[in-house]
Structure formats: C-alpha cells, structure tokens
C-alpha cells in the first residue's frame, strides 16, 4: 500500500454532468456540497473541469445528443476514474424508459461503478454512493481487502 494509493481514496474530486434529467438529482448533488452535508470533510471537491476530476457523477437518462458529450467527458478524465449514476433515470432510464430519443441508463454508454437509487436521490444516498465507489476503488488499487 503506497502513499499514492492511499491518497487516491482520500481525495476524490467529482465532476457532475447532467444528461437530460429534470434537474431534481442535480439539485440534490449540489445540496450535498452545502454546509449541511459538507462533503469536503472527505476531501470531495466539485470540479468543473474533467481533466482535474476523479469521479464522474452523472444524472438523468442518456439521449442521442448527450451520449457523445458524455463519452468525450469520460475520455478526458485521467485514470484512475470512477462513474456514479445518480437517480433512477441515470440508472435505468426511469420514467423516460423506451422514449424515442432515449438510449437508457448511463451504463448503455459508460462502464458504471455505482448506481444510486431514488427519484430524486437524496444527498445522503449520493454521499453513500461516493463512499461505495471509494471502497471499490480502494479494493482495485489494493488498499483494502
């Protein structure tokens, strides 16, 4: 266990991308950054730039327009990276399932690591999702058993 692997778990910088959601989950993602939940306690910082991010937090169902934007953003994040699908729509397509313009959940385009349920997902659930993603990352880099 090196210091770099330990630091990767301690300092996840998230980037938030909204596909075509109703903005309910986006508001909840931003709510978890407020003083009430204060995710900076865990070193989580919201980044606007994919080149600085570690974790891609995606809300909303993927449509034909946003699919290539989503792929582009994912490719710009340097390794190691995680993807979290927040909300029912990002996980499965939700109420937009089988719409003519909707591809479905985020996993139709990207490899998703953690699915966060809820409509809209609560901030507690989102923080829980990030923690789960970090546990997965720490297993992948060999910090935890």
């Amino acid at each position, binding site marked *: 266990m090196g*210091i*770099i*692997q*330990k*630091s*990767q778990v*301690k*300092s996840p910088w998230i980037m938030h991308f909204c596909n075509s959601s109703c903005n309910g989950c986006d508001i909840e993602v931003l709510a978890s*950054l407020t*003083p009430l939940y*204060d995710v*900076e*306690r*865990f*070193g989580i*910082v*919201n*980044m*606007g*730039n994919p*080149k*600085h991010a*570690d974790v891609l937090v995606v809300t909303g169902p993927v449509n034909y327009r946003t699919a290539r934007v989503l792929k582009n953003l994912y490719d*710009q994040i*340097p*390794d*190691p990276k995680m993807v979290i699908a927040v909300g029912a729509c990002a996980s499965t397509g939700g109420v937009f399932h089988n719409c003519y313009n909707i591809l479905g959940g985020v996993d139709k385009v990207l490899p998703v690591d953690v699915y966060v349920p809820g409509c809209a997902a609560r901030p507690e659930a989102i923080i829980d999702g990030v923690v789960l993603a970090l546990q997965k990352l720490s297993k992948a880099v060999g910090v935890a058993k």
Partner: protein
Amino acid sequence: MSQLWIAVIAVVAAPFVGGFLSGIDRRVTARLQGRYGPPIVQPFYDFFKLLGKGRIATSKTQFIWIISYLVFMIACLLFLVLQQDILLLVFLLGFAGISFVLAGFSTKSPYSHFGANRELLQILSYEPILLLFALGVYSQTGSFMISDILASEAPLLASIWPIFIALLVVLTIKMRKSPFDIATSHHGHQELVKGIMTEISGPYYALVTLTEWYELVLLLGIVALFWANPLWIGILIALAAFVLELFVDNINARMTGGWMVRFSWAVGLVLCIVTLTYWWIMKGVF
C-alpha cells in the same frame, strides 16, 4: 558548507510548511463558512493523488514551462534563505510568474489563454510594488542584501509601514485569494472553467501545487523581513498576515481584472511612492 545545509533544509522543509499552511487555510475557510472542513493533511492527499493520475498531454512545451516555474520559485526561496540580493529575488520571481504565463499560452485552449492573459494582469499589478519594496529596503539599510536587513537593529515595519500595507495586497494577489483571484481561483473555490489551470492536469497539476507551496513560504518569508530582528516577531507578523488573508478571502467577492490593476496601482503604488519620497526628503538617500 553551512550555507549548503541551510539551502537543502529550506528546499526540503518549505513544501511541508506550505502544505500544512494551505491545510490550515482550507480548515479555517470551512469554519468561517459554517462547515467542518477537510483534515489538515488534505493538501498532501491531493498532491499525492495528482502524482498518481494518468498523464494527458495537450502540449509538451507546457511541461517545460511548468518545471521552470518550479525551478525559478525554488531559486527565489534559496535567494531568501541564503540572504542574497532582494532586487534579484524580485526579478527571479517575475520570471517565475512569466514561466507560468507561458505554460498557459502554450496550449490551444482559449480558456487557458484567457487565464494566461489574466495572470499577466496580475503580474502587472504586483511586480511594480515588489520593485518599490526593494527600493524601500535600500532607503533604510543602504543595500539590497537581505543579510543587511537581518543585521540592522531597527525594524523595517516602523519606518516603511505603508509599503507593508502595499505588500499585503501583493500577498492577496499571489495567494490567489478573493478579490484578486483573477487568473484562477484558489483551491477552495469551485468554478466552471479553471482559468490558467484548465489544461494542466495530473502530475503537472501536482507540480503547480508544489510551486504554490514554495511561493507561499517565500512570500511569508518576505513579509517576515519587516521585523527581522528578532526574527520570531517577523514570523508572527507573517502568520498574522496569512490569517488576515483568509478573512479577506472570505468576506470579498471576486473583482474584475481591470479593477485589480486600478486598485493595486492606486493604493499600493501610491503608498510605496509616498514612503520613498518621504525618506528621500528626510535622509537624502538614492
């Protein structure tokens, strides 16, 4: 030989001091905003994580300029701890700033270019004040050597205190604190496009962070020179200035680049020139 040891200790210890100070910075800022805040060692976690990230090359020239930014900043710090010429230190610091600007200009991203232009505006704001600070030191000690400041009995703060106020403005600009975080914001602030940092990612972001730690220690060291004898009072003054910057950061919004230049020239330059003129009349130096 002892000079060599001082240099080695300074180069090794400065990042630890700088990282620790920026950890305190994030903690104090969080407390001022009613949050709990990250652990004090969080900047080190960020630094090592960034070192382990993959490299995405948009321009290879940029890497050379980032490394030269680091090297010139270390050279500045060595000038300070080895008690060399303060005028040359100011010029070296200027070249370090220019290296960072060129790092911003060496990519094709327009956001990076915007950031680099704004960084140039920042250099335009603080560089004349630093130059006049060196002249102010000369007016008191009769030389530009830092060793002479440390040898002199009377503190600089008593005689050229207006220049100290101007230097606090420089400190705000160099620490990238509001209202002067024009080129890119300091870490605690979150923004859509990260100015000059837009194209700098992974290990190179870590190098820029390391340079900023060196820069913080260097600037606080320069502030400490205002009470060089005994030096511990100067260090206390520097730490007080650091805490003051955190408060200034949290009670101000970001201003425009033009406002920054107008403010720093109208307040900083005028304070410096008035002080220098006063001492020119009183002592007939220069």
